[in-house]
């Protein structure tokens, strides 16, 4: 009773051709089954055909060496042929006819559906939307960063707890921040340095405390630095969808700065 059913490799291969197409057709992923001797596709589902841009039936018989669209895939299938690799999971590309690349996550697994019988299962997930969204987000982020670094004001952003989130290069120049201060995230050192630069530190700190106490306060103040430069500071809450998430300070050297002595 406990003996396994006698299944020979030919009946499994036959089953692969007759039964498994129905099984893999029910899957959402693009799936191809590959026989180990010639590394040729023996079954492919509809999503695989759509992803690769050819009818699934036309994928049957295709050689994986020829289908490999990246050096990584080509290398992997060569290793499979040499019995030095059996599985892989990584981000890659497939090529549609005409060399149109499609980013995918690709997994190849080696299965033994019956003793002595081996098949490789190629599963592909289309990564186009994620790939393009990631690249678009990178572009938007880079543009925003470049904009904040290009404005003529020194910009300082703090979070609700008063910690520095970011500042731009102009801020560092305006306040003569030392290189060591830029390389360490030491907020207290930056704040201490700013306090030491103003001509009237006590008044400066009292005003900062007032600003700090009013999350939604918008204010413009002027103060002198010890160097004689006149600075205008404009501050407003940093809001995300109407909710305060921090505070933005803009510093600008006024043209009516008293002449330096």
């Amino acid at each position, binding site marked *: 009773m406990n003996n396994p059913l006698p299944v020979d490799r030919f009946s499994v291969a036959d089953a692969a051709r007759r039964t498994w197409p129905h099984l893999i057709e029910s899957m959402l992923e693009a799936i191809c089954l590959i026989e180990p001797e010639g590394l040729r596709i023996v079954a492919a589902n509809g999503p695989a055909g759509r992803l690769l841009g050819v009818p699934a039936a036309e994928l049957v018989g295709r050689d994986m060496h020829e289908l490999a669209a990246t050096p*990584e895939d080509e290398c992997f299938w060569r290793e499979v042929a040499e019995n030095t*690799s059996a599985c892989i999971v990584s981000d*890659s590309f497939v*090529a549609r006819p005409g*060399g149109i690349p499609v980013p995918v996550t690709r997994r190849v697994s080696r299965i033994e559906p019956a003793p002595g019988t081996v098949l490789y299962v190629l599963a592909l997930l289309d990564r186009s939307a994620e790939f393009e969204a990631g690249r678009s987000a990178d572009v938007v982020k*880079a543009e925003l960063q470049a904009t904040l670094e290009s404005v003529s004001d020194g910009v300082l952003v703090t979070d609700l707890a008063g910690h520095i989130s970011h*500042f731009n290069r102009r801020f*560092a120049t305006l306040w003569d921040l030392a290189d060591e201060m830029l*390389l360490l*995230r030491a907020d207290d050192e930056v704040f201490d340095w700013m306090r030491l630069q103003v001509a009237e530190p006590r008044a400066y700190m009292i005003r900062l405390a007032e600003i700090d106490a009013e999350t939604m306060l918008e204010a413009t103040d002027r103060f002198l630095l010890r160097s004689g430069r006149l600075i205008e500071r404009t501050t407003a809450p940093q809001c995300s969808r109407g909710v305060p998430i921090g505070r933005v300070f803009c510093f600008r050297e006024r043209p009516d700065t008293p002449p330096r002595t």
Partner: protein
Amino acid sequence: METGLVQAKKMGLSAGATAVIAQHHEHADGSGFPAGLNSDRMTMAARIVALVNRYDNLCNPRLPARALTPHEALSLLFAQGRSKFDTSILGAFIKMMGVYPPGSTVQLTDDRYATVLAVNSSRPLKPSVLVHDPAIPREEALVLDLESAVGLGIRRSIKAQQLPPTALDYLAPSPRIAYFFEPAAALEAE
């Protein structure tokens, strides 16, 4: 292109160098420009520069945020370029660069981040990597030969700036200004 050729003439460049300038946007299958030359009518040097120029443009585009990793650029060149570039030159280029060029930042199949240190020419998918492990000091960082690490591989290549800050400091330690909106790799001369 024409400006380049005029400059080449003014500079008295050799015929070979001038041909490279004239042909480095041509494709092996004749689909390039300006003359639509195929591989047979391009000089060897122009075929090499056409490939390297395309690779460089993928890794260092005008908009840096659209840059591909070296691994992605090689994959894309291979996927779309087998007809566009001289196959033997493309093959030699990929052999030279490796599937994951040294210096590439990668994520392993167990989700750890790593930097590729050296290509394994007999097993290109299994290079040596330096692995980010917060529990190990950077000076004693684990160097892993993926060929001997059973079940472990590279899942994807990523741009260094996509690494979490702690992993970035660990894998690519260089003076970095933490506060700027646009990260700077080092202090730049203003």
